[in-house]
């Protein structure tokens, strides 16, 4: 019974509280980290929500949207969208693999996802260079660069998470069919980044056609 308080350095998990007589019911609870991430992502989506509302508000005020000379191009972003959306399926293959204890499979699919994410960021950077207008050109370009840039930052963080998973998976036994919360969290974050992009793509690229 004393084992529960002896090592205070450990986080509270089933293992540390299980010895107490009444704590066994905690074992049935889902892992808090996933719940924590989901809660955080709800908060994060409100951040993008603020940006979307700003965009729509300013668009509603403007006579012409986007102003002459700052039209967006469509081909590259569409390819980019296809890449990012597909990567959400690819990363799920990695998650499926680790649940079958297939570490090599997980690593393979996560590497592919990382490459797709990097390609997306590269495409985004290329688009910035070739558009012919910058952050400060007009109110539309303000919105365009801040929104896509803020999203790009999130893609970059997602990429780092995936690379972190790959780095950790080098150690044998770090991940397994029963130990893959970190892998799952990277996947959830990646899906989030993907969903945000779909809304963002609709607002900035599709809706400006009409």
């Amino acid at each position: 019974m004393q084992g529960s308080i002896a090592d205070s350095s450990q986080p509270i998990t089933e293992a540390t509280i299980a010895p107490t007589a009444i704590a066994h019911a905690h074992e049935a609870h889902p892992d808090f980290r996933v719940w924590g991430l989901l809660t955080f992502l709800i908060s994060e989506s409100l951040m993008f929500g603020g940006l979307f509302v700003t965009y729509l508000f300013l668009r509603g005020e403007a006579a012409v949207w986007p102003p002459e000379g700052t039209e967006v191009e469509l081909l590259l972003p569409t390819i980019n969208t296809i890449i990012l959306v597909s990567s959400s399926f690819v990363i799920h293959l990695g998650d499926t693999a680790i649940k079958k204890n297939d570490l090599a499979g997980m690593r393979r699919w996560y590497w592919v996802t990382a490459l797709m994410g990097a390609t997306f960021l590269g495409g985004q950077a290329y688009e910035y260079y070739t558009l012919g207008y910058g952050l400060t050109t007009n109110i539309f370009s303000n919105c365009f660069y801040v929104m896509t840039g803020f999203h790009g930052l999130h893609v970059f963080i997602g990429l780092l998470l995936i690379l972190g998973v790959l780095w950790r998976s080098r150690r044998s036994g770090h991940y397994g069919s029963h130990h893959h919360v970190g892998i799952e969290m990277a996947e959830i974050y990646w899906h989030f980044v993907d969903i945000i992009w779909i809304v963002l793509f609709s607002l900035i690229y599709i809706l400006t056609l009409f």
Partner: protein
Amino acid sequence: MTPAQLPVNTPLADPGASPPPQGWKWYDYFTFNVDHKVIGIQYLVTSFFFYLIGGAMAVAMRTELATPDSDFIDPTLYNAFMTNHGTIMIFLWIVPSAIGGFGNFLVPLMIGARDMAFPKLNAIAFWLNPPAGALLMASFFFGGAQSGWTSYPPLSEITANVAQSMWILAIVMVGTSSILGALNFVITILFMRIPSMRLDQSPLFCWAMLATSLLALLSTPVLAIGLLLLLFDINFGTSFFKPDAGGNVVLYQHLFWFYSHPAVYLMILPIFGIMSEVFPVYSRKPIFGYKAIAYSSMAICLVGLFVWVHHMFTSGTPPWMRLFFTISTLIVGIPTGVKIFGWVATMWGGKIRYTTSMLFAIGFLTMFVFGGMTGVTMGTAPVDIHVHDTYYVVGHFHYVLFGGSVFGLYAGIYHWFPKMTGRLLNEPLGWVHFALTFIGSNLTFLPMHQLGLQGMPRRVAMYDPQFTSVNQLCTIGAFILAASVIPFTINVVWSWSRGAVAGDNPWRALTLEWTTSSPPLIENWEVLPVLTHGPYDYGLNNSSPENLEPVAGSTSPS
């Protein structure tokens, strides 16, 4: 007294047990520590330090306002004080002490958990606060932000650009801290209660923290975006809030108030939670309407997200918006009233003990009801258009934020100080503290309503001489208020090392935090407690826990 006579850290005698963990040393409180109790006390002490700084700014401003002319401090410095007084009191005193301080210390203890769900994240959230405060202090080297805590453009974009940018970064830091803390509370309260405690058996403070945290999670990110865009406007040449280039200033107000109105609930909901704990203990009666009080917290959380435009009735707001937001604002009065009546009914016929904590709780009730009523008058668009941007507004929000939040914080400190430190605060000094605070706050903030109704604008260093005498009344009150902090500080510092030993449960309270030692063990309990009674079963036959100690201090009046 020698230390040997003060066995506050001595663990329970338990033959055959392995050596229990040591208590924390004083220097542990200055390190990156993941214990929720250490973090709670870190929040409380840090925020109290900023409270003193913010208070000093207020005293300087009130001294300036003792005369109509600008003769004490430079008007630019006055603006910087005005901006940072509000910012510090909100973001570095009330929010971190109520949510970070009491929330972190109490929530795991109240629900029988050994720590928060994410202890490291919790420590990170705390350690974002001191740098944010330092950033605000440093901004004074660049003139200090000039545009008030609301930082409306265009003023915020054309004055003190460097200081304004530092201000924005500081707020984004405390905002991040707030989001991280909030997600921790939500997961902890939902998933980490002892198995024998259902959510509707948890203390009302936990309900209040749940509502607070949900509100913080949903509203804080929107402020972050608003401030990010402001930062871009100031430093990177964008024009989101510049009307001459297609931007819109009212857009900022929407983004700002979508957070900052809920922010007033962030500052008062935890205090409501503290009140729901304090009233039953000192009235020795079950709380009146547990479920009504619990659900009204959630109702305030929900409705509170849809009232923000009542701050913008004079911003060219269309009539349908004025109508909608007037109605939604008045609806907030209902769940708030439910709580007030619940507490009054709890006291009714109770065996009231007038401890300092209870005095502050009753003081809270009177002050907050008054502030609430002026709030209802301003929530209606016609009155608001008359009093907008006058001292009436200043009077109102000081009644709810000082008379409400700060009184509630004091009540909480007197109530839980024995649990945090193992020692009681001195009661006679506490009464002096209460008397000075109550007189001082009413004398400072009541005349402001008259000033506002007569048309004195807020946020000015100079004013029309006809307002002189009433302003001097406010200034005298402010001095009394400043003096009231002295007995409190002496009391805390002295009692922390030399106060009377409290014992585990000096107030004979029934919530779980009183079942462990004072101060609690590092992981809170040797063996997790099992729920045998509800949190407010005072005066009921089944509610006499064993090992109750005599009521502490001189706390049983007629």
